[in-house]
């Protein structure tokens, strides 16, 4: 008999007051008992609606069944057949709009905690999984540009097929947004590092400090003997609003703020990275990056942190759990509020944010509700730092140095259904193709490209 409890088995969480002052992970991993209890909520539906909601098609009911049987190692292996980064996905996937949104249990009550169970398997196996067997080399070389989620999943699948894979990373640490963007309290860096070490054990070479497009061009990679190139360079260029005051000291892109904090570990005394010590911080935007920046600011010692978002709570694109956690930690949400100017303290530093109230309009053709400013509703928010988290665009370094590589109006690479770009042998995926999206979609694209690259090289 399945467990008919209507709500998910809770995962232990750090007390909001305490965690708002540290960078330790917010949620704990399920214990074996908790995992078993939650696994028993799965009805093992024949038509597996949850799987259709997963961009990489994780065999969800099968792995949950293994947990029920107490065979965690087998559950983990099942996940690993389609998902190279379960410890990451279990933590950062927007399950509520993917697998869990399709779960039958969600019709009455909460869906099965698929994300938590996935994380449980990965964490449980972290120190138990044996080193993967190095596949027989097939003698073909593939270059991967960018070591974020799309690049890592592409590398993983190709390495398993015996390809000699080299991943090039511009930063000094591999992992892309998993390392520089998503904070420690949501995705511990040791977890990401373990996944990367796993790839290295498969024989994948990782070369850091390599800005492709500068030190080597894509064409030079082919000259060096790589037979195919996958571009997973993400969407790294931060957008600003174009309002007055954005050049004041104390205005940051979320990328800068998060990179200083996560990658450069500004929150640890041992590191030399400087970061603004701010007391009142306004974060502009409503996505996961905005939540991450706001919650990081709080942990870096801010007394007051605002999220300033021009639409209402319902339109907010961030993961529900992050919004919930942010609220618990004391972050104040200013909905239907749009900044019009960042105010100068007279010395070139931020002293506040001038905003206007917004109202929702009827949904447009895409179904999304727009907003328009309400006349004479201007007001000011006091702040000594403003963080812009309003999206990013793809980096032009590759497209400007690779002849024949087509991009769209927004600078995203144009690819066909096999992730092939307009250049033979050059594939692309992840945010570099879609614009800023999720970790799991990027991983799905990396996998698809790996399959296409394998076909391409085999048929050459």
């Amino acid at each position: 008999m399945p467990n008919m409890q209507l709500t998910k088995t809770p995962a232990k969480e750090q007390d909001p007051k305490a965690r708002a002052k540290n960078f330790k992970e917010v949620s704990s991993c399920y214990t074996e008992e908790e995992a078993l209890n939650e696994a028993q909520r799965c009805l093992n539906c024949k038509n597996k609606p949850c799987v259709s909601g997963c961009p990489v098609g994780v065999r969800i009911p099968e792995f949950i069944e293994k947990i029920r049987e107490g065979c965690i190692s087998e559950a983990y292996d099942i996940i690993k057949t389609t998902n190279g980064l379960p410890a990451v996905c279990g933590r950062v996937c927007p399950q509520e709009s993917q697998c869990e949104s399709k779960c039958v249990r969600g019709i009455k009550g909460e869906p099965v905690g698929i994300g938590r169970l996935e994380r449980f398997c990965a964490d449980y196996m972290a120190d138990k999984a044996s080193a993967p067997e190095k596949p027989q080399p097939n003698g073909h070389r593939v270059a991967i540009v960018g070591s974020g989620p799309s690049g890592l999943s592409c590398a993983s699948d190709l390495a398993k097929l015996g390809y000699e894979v080299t991943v090039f990373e511009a930063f000094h640490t591999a992992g892309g947004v998993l390392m520089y963007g998503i904070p420690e309290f949501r995705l511990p860096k040791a977890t990401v590092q373990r996944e990367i070490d796993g790839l290295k054990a498969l024989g994948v070479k990782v070369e850091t400090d390599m800005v492709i497009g500068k030190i080597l061009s894509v064409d030079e990679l082919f000259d060096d003997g790589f037979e195919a190139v996958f571009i997973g360079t993400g969407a790294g260029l931060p957008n600003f609003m174009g309002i007055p005051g954005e050049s004041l000291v104390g205005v940051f892109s979320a990328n800068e703020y998060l990179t200083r904090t996560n990658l450069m570990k500004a929150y640890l005394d041992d590191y030399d990275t400087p970061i603004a010590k701010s007391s009142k911080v306004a974060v502009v935007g409503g996505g996961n990056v905005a939540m991450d920046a706001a919650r990081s600011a709080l942990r870096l010692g801010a007394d007051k942190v605002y999220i300033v978002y021009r639409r209402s709570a319902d339109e907010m694109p961030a993961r529900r759990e992050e919004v919930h956690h942010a609220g618990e930690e004391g972050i104040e949400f200013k909905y239907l509020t749009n900044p019009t100017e960042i105010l100068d303290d007279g010395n070139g530093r931020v002293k506040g944010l001038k905003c206007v109230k917004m109202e929702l309009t009827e949904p447009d053709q895409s179904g999304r509700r727009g907003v328009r400013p309400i006349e004479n509703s201007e007001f000011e928010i006091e702040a000594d730092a403003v963080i812009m988290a309003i999206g990013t665009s793809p980096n032009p370094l590759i497209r400007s140095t690779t002849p024949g590589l087509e991009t769209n109006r927004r600078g995203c690479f144009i690819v066909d259904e096999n992730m092939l770009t307009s250049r033979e042998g050059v594939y692309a995926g992840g945010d570099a193709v879609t614009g800023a999206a999720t970790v799991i979609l990027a991983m799905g694209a990396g996998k698809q490209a790996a399959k296409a690259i394998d076909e391409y090289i085999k048929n050459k």
Partner: protein
Amino acid sequence: MYKILKKKELNAQVTLMELEAPLIAKKALAGQFIIFRIDEFGERIPLTIADYDREKGTVTIIFQKVGRSTIMLGNLNEGDSILDLVGPLGVPTEIPEGAKKVAVIGGGVGCAIAYPQAKALYNVGVEVDVIAGFRSRDIVILEDEMRAVSKNLYITTDDGTYGMKGFVTNKLQELIDAGNKYDCVIAIGPVPMMKFVCAVTKPYGIKTIVSLNPIMIDGTGMCGGCRVRVGGQIKYACVDGPDFDGHEVDFDELMHRNSAYKEQEQHDREHICRLTGGAVNA
């Protein structure tokens, strides 16, 4: 790891280092920069490439020991290695086509970058006048080198202990007044110096190229920290620069932005003094 093959103190504050980095050396061009990081705990610090040797596979940097990381780098020796070196970043310097006579102006440690610019121009037959400004005689660097690649080398010192007493702008004005017709001026040095050089050249419409050095992290356009206002538009010095048309640059805003971490930097310097027993240049 990137090995330090050569180290030379140019004056009490300024050090030259040759680093082993064959791939960067192969691609580097005048005006581009690198980012270094000493160790796992270090900052990422951008420095313009002072020279490169494609055959030896080396990149030369010249830096002033002003902040924590440059002081720590200065404390390393030949044979030591640093953890990270990224480059070549940024867009190479573009000299206006057909320029026959160019004034290259360096201020202090900026001469480290002005020198290779002068050398590149001199080697293709351009008539080069170099104006090099320093606070005082004891910190003059690269004098012989700059003399070798210029038709005329003019040195100015703020206190008059060497060369002409005054600023580079005084000398530039004097040369223009004396009838010198420059097709282009390249100015590299402290932000106020570049600002005032541009003020001198603007009335004459002399194209003036400046090399900016704002605060940045990645050097690939990702952090947006290095944004500068050029011609009213926001540009990223790391990917759009570091060279810009000086007449279009908002220098005052740049100076403000560069002061963002001044207090922390001061604190760090004192901390290093304690670490090294009081000597900043130990």
